[in-house]
Structure formats: structure tokens, C-alpha cells
């Protein structure tokens, strides 16, 4: 794996879709790209701005029954570093919670990442999402909302541990119950343990569509 710049700023567009398979299963797919607009310091053979990677993720969750809200998934990533592919298996449990006019969501994930000539990386992640309507008591169609995410993750690779913190703040537009558009900033502090902490700031643009 090639070394990456310690500070990166870029844009991260994403398309997220979901649909049901019968009454029992729900499938969520995500396509996400990352383009670096500025990085420092610049690595050898890199330019200040460049395409970084593309992820395709698929999660299948139970829609009812005892396993409702539990899911398993898979991610494939194509990185521009050396054109190689990374594979990830994902296990997830998520649910919503309403407190007054705030909609919360809790997402617990574990994942295992497989890369050629790299040891398997294991992660445990917890994300808290909060949605606040900007008009009225709840988010109705054709209304705006604010979304905030906080995610912490523990990482284990080659018997070494590390941590990552992610923070998101976005303005969302709820076009309908099936369509949301969001724009905001996603900050990530990677490798928190040690002196090589990486700071990444992404302008995130996301479209969520439900079939």
C-alpha cells in the first residue's frame, strides 16, 4: 500500500439506493468516489489534486422477524494508488430512535478488510446520527433538515491497534420520503494513536433514493 498525504481535502460524491426483496429483505447499495483537491505533503508520483478511489458497497438487511435491522454486506474498492482492489466483508446492526423532534439512528458495524500482500484489518465501529428538522416538528416532504454524524472506530491489524474518528455535518433536503439530497463536510482523523494522525476533510454530496 502506498503512503498517503497526512492532510487531504477533497470532494466525495455518493449515490445511495435501497429496495426491498419481498417482505423479508432490504438491500442498500452505495457508490462513492473520492477526488483529492488538495493534499500536503505531496507524495512521490502524486499531484496536488487527483482521483483517489471508488467504492461500491452492498448491504442486505432483514426487514422483519427476530433479525430485523441486522445485515451483512460487501464492499469493493478500486484505489488509484496502484490500481489494486480491496475487499471488505461487513456486518451491521442499525436502528432509529425518536427523541422529541430529533430523529436519532444508531449503527454498529464490524468489518474485515482484505488486500493483496496485506494482513487482514479488523474494525469495530459505532456511529450516532442525528437529524433535526429545520421547520416544524418533523421532517416532511419538501423540507430541509440538518444531519450530524459522529463515528468512532477501533482498528486491529497485525496485532497493532488504532482508532479513527469521523464527524459529519450536512444540510439535507427531503424531496419526498424516497428521496433526500445532502451536502456537507465530513472530517476524518485517521490513525489517532501515534504521531502519524491523518486529517481528511471531504465535501460530501449525497443522493439517497429508495425504490
Amino acid at each position, binding site marked *: 500500500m502506498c503512503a498517503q498525504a497526512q492532510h487531504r481535502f477533497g470532494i466525495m460524491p455518493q449515490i445511495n*439506493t*435501497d429496495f426491498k426483496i419481498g417482505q423479508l429483505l432490504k438491500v442498500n447499495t452505495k457508490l462513492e468516489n473520492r477526488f483529492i483537491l488538495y493534499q500536503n505533503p505531496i507524495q512521490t508520483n502524486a499531484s496536488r489534486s487527483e*482521483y483517489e478511489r471508488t467504492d461500491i458497497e452492498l448491504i442486505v438487511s432483514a426487514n422483519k422477524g427476530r433479525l430485523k435491522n441486522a445485515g451483512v454486506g460487501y464492499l469493493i474498492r478500486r484505489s488509484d494508488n496502484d490500481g489494486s482492489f480491496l475487499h471488505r466483508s461487513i456486518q451491521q446492526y442499525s436502528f*432509529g430512535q425518536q427523541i422529541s423532534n430529533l430523529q436519532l439512528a444508531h*449503527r454498529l458495524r464490524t468489518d474485515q478488510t482484505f488486500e493483496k500482500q496485506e494482513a487482514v484489518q479488523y474494525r469495530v465501529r459505532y456511529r450516532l*446520527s442525528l437529524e433535526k428538522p429545520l421547520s*416544524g*416538528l418533523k421532517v*416532511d416532504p419538501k423540507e430541509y433538515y440538518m*444531519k450530524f454524524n459522529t463515528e468512532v472506530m477501533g482498528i486491529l491489524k497485525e496485532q497493532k491497534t488504532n482508532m479513527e474518528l469521523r464527524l459529519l455535518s450536512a444540510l439535507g433536503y427531503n424531496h419526498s420520503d424516497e428521496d433526500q439530497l445532502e451536502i456537507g463536510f465530513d472530517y476524518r482523523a485517521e490513525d489517532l494513536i501515534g504521531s502519524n494522525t491523518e486529517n481528511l476533510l471531504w465535501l460530501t454530496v449525497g443522493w439517497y433514493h429508495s425504490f
Partner: protein
Amino acid sequence: MVLRRKTFKTNMKNGVILLMLSLFFTVAVQAQQKFERESRLKISEVPENAKLFLESLFSNPTKIRWYKEESLTGITIEAKKKEKEGTYSIKFSLAGELQDTELTQKFNQLPPETQQRITDHLQATYKRAKIKKVQLQWLAPQEIISALIKGKQPAESYTTNYEVEFSGNKDGEVKLYETLFDHAGNPMETKEIVQRNLHHLLY
């Protein structure tokens, strides 16, 4: 330089292919019908008689939040006010006539016999029902509502109902429901609460 240009072209081509794969399932779907929609109202938009009534009830009327609510039954104006006994929701018509007064309650604040009847009904109808929210509902003219909110017991009769929001497992599926019970705990009307799609928060 030539190698970097070729790599860029290959990356763009792969990016387009990946984008098209993701959009493969694109089919337009009509949005579901909405049952309720509320929007915040400025104090200047509230009917004068509704405003005066609320000011007579509470010592700090500036903390009252006003909303316009549109539903299948029409448009109403709702005032919400937090007090130490709970949150009041007081509904008016567009002309400012009092329609409905509700107060959040804990389930164990209800009369014991009412609690038992409600519990019996939920256990008989649903598997693993879990109460999320209870509201006491008063249907009465302004003078009686005013006396009740001020902690006095009016001489005239009035109607008390209980609105209970709960999750219930029916036919293997857990859904959110709202049932209106009379003062004795007999069920009057049940509505299913349509839950929003939270995919933008859960994934």
C-alpha cells in the same frame, strides 16, 4: 507523462462504468401519501383569541411554540408548551376555536384500573407491545380547560381520553400504532403510524 494520461483515461472509463452499474436499477417510484404535515407559525400569524387564551393559562407565554398542522381532516393551529407536569398540546381551528387539549403523561400516572384495561387490551391484541408515549386528552370548553390546567377541579363534566403510542408485534411484524382509549381504558380507535424511511441515517 504518457503513462499518467493513459492511467487517467482508464480511471475515468472505470468511473463511468461503475456509475452506470450503480444506476442500473433506476426506476421512478411515486412517493407515499403524507398523513400529517406541520410548519412553524410566527406569533403574528396566530388568531388573536387563541393567543389570548394561552396567555391566560401560562405565566411565560413567550415559550409557547405555535404550529400549523395539515392533515387529512383539515388544517389546525397547535400550541405547544412545556410545564413541569408535562408538555401541553392545545389545538385550535383556523378561526381560533379550541378543539383539543393534550398533556403528556407517564403510563403509571393513569388510574390503576385504566392502566390494567389498556395493558390487557395490548397483550390480547399484540405480541410484545411496548408503550412509547401517553397523552391525556381533554375535550371541554375553554373555561373547564383553564381550570384543569391551573390544577382546579371544575364542577362541570368533561371528557377525558388517553392517546397511547406504542410498538406492537402483529403477524411477525413490528409496527408503530396509536390507540385512543376512553377514561376507563376501553379502546376507541387505532391508527398505524407510518414510519419514515431512515436510509439516509441508517446506512
